[in-house]
């Protein structure tokens, strides 16, 4: 199957903004036009081929290689296709994304999947802050879609998210699920502090005990029915969530009472 492959030739001195590197843009262009696409480096604009070796054309299967830590906005607003990155990426990976898939064999910067509306992002390393979050001043973060972070996630993960799922394999830093309005955040290795601060609705599921704010109340122990369904969905993504009542139980905390909100935090307690 055809694909477009981009190899970073040199690491830029300052961040490179590459919102043109999306399956949507590349899938309709012949090789020459891909090479001529613009990149923004600080105040200057460059052609893609000044920074990347370009192979292939007209494909929504895109593969990137290299240390892309300083490359921002990869997969911005993409609606289809697949973007695979071998290396670390910079900020705003898959921000405003609507569909398709991003797979990063490496770590990503801040704002992964910020304000995304659909699609799947898988970061196999760590992610920076504001995963799936709302940009400053906006009232709603991610509206749908799925983000999987195998490693740790930074501050304000899922800030103001409304729908969709974020799964974090490593530890989540402060303010996970800040002002959350809906959707699910799964924390497989727990979190630091202030999880669920000011949450209005939505669900946070943690496999490890959490240090909660005093404005969360313990409600009950239970194994909610929807979790079985949710666990099955996650299973397809390679994430396993315990649901057997024989193995343990979820403690339900509700809050944040300071809002007052109707969010739920479920903490797994194995027997």
């Amino acid at each position, binding site marked *: 199957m055809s694909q477009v492959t981009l190899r970073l030739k040199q690491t830029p*001195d*300052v*961040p490179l*903004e590459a*919102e043109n590197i999306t399956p949507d843009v590349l899938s309709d262009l012949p090789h020459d036009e891909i090479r001529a696409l*613009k990149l*923004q480096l*600080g*105040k*200057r*604009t460059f052609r893609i081929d000044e920074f990347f070796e370009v192979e292939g054309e007209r494909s929504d299967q895109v593969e990137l290689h290299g240390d892309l830590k*300083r490359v921002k*906005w990869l997969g911005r607003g993409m609606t289809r296709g697949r973007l695979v990155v071998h290396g670390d990426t910079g*900020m705003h990976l898959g*921000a*405003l994304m609507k569909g398709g898939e991003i797979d990063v064999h490496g770590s990503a910067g*801040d*704002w992964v999947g910020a*304000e995304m509306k659909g699609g799947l992002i898988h970061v196999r390393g760590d992610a920076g*802050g*504001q995963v799936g979050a709302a*940009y*400053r001043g*906006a009232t709603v973060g991610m509206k749908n879609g799925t983000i999987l972070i195998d490693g740790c996630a930074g501050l304000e993960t899922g800030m103001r998210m409304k729908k969709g799922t974020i799964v974090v394999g490593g530890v989540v830093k*402060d*303010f996970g699920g*800040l002002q959350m309005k809906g959707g699910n955040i799964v924390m497989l290795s727990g979190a630091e502090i*202030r999880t669920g*601060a*000011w949450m209005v609705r939505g669900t946070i599921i943690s496999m490890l005990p959490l240090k*909660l*704010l*005093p*404005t*969360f*109340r*313990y409600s009950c122990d239970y194994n909610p029915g929807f979790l079985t369904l949710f666990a099955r969905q996650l299973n397809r993504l390679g994430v396993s969530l315990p649901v057997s009542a024989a193995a343990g139980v979820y403690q339900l905390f509700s809050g*944040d*009472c*300071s*809002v*007052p909100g109707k969010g739920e935090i479920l903490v797994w307690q194995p027997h």
Partner: protein
Amino acid sequence: MVLVDIRETKSVKASDIFLQIRPGKDFEVITILRALVKEQPVDESQVQETGLTLEQLQDFVDRMKKAKFGVFFFGMGLSMTRGKHMNSAALLTLAAELNAFTKFVAMPMRGHGNVTGADVIMRWQTGYPFAIQFGRGYPRYNPGEFSTVDLLVRGDVDAALILGADPGATMPQPAIDHLARIPTICLDPKVTHTSRLSRVHITTAATGISAPGTGYRMDEVPLPLRPALKSPYPTDEQVVRRIHEAVLKKPDWLQQGNRMALNQV
């Protein structure tokens, strides 16, 4: 007057009530207060970790609600400790919510002379208060991405002009290292840590002492400056204008047809 701090300071004497909280518990305390204001339950066992009792906090809430006109003054102890902007946001929200019961406002205590003026001017010229990037020819804003410490620590800028500040004395070491690595230009009346690591240092007149102009008080009231001395050095205003004029003589990097607007939504 109620004073909240992590240690007994000289201000304790001036206050009627002193609430000593544990370091790093600002956000927790304010969030509890928000719940109590709305008569929502809080987990008492966890309240203790803040260093205060539920009674103290409830009493504080009752007093705030009874006040005719309340003001929160807050400083860098709040905005620069763990939680940062969220600590400030928490206090602003609490102030807003208290207006359901009485009149309440919140005001940041600004540490530096005219930092308020910088906020105000950037807002009217660019729409944003700080952390603004012009790389695409129009203002973009994202604290964390375009804020100075983050930019310097990540090494995301390749020259710097420092005005009326001494980051060489106050910023984290990796940020200072980057300033020393790139060409830095410093305008300052004196020799500073920053001027020593700069490639160019231009001595300027001291603001309000030998340089005239305007300064904003932290409540956004502009005040005229009345210098008492005549400086042998030019003012910051003059030097910046001259640098600007010198830059204007160079070819413009922004070409017609070379414009890419990247609105984020």
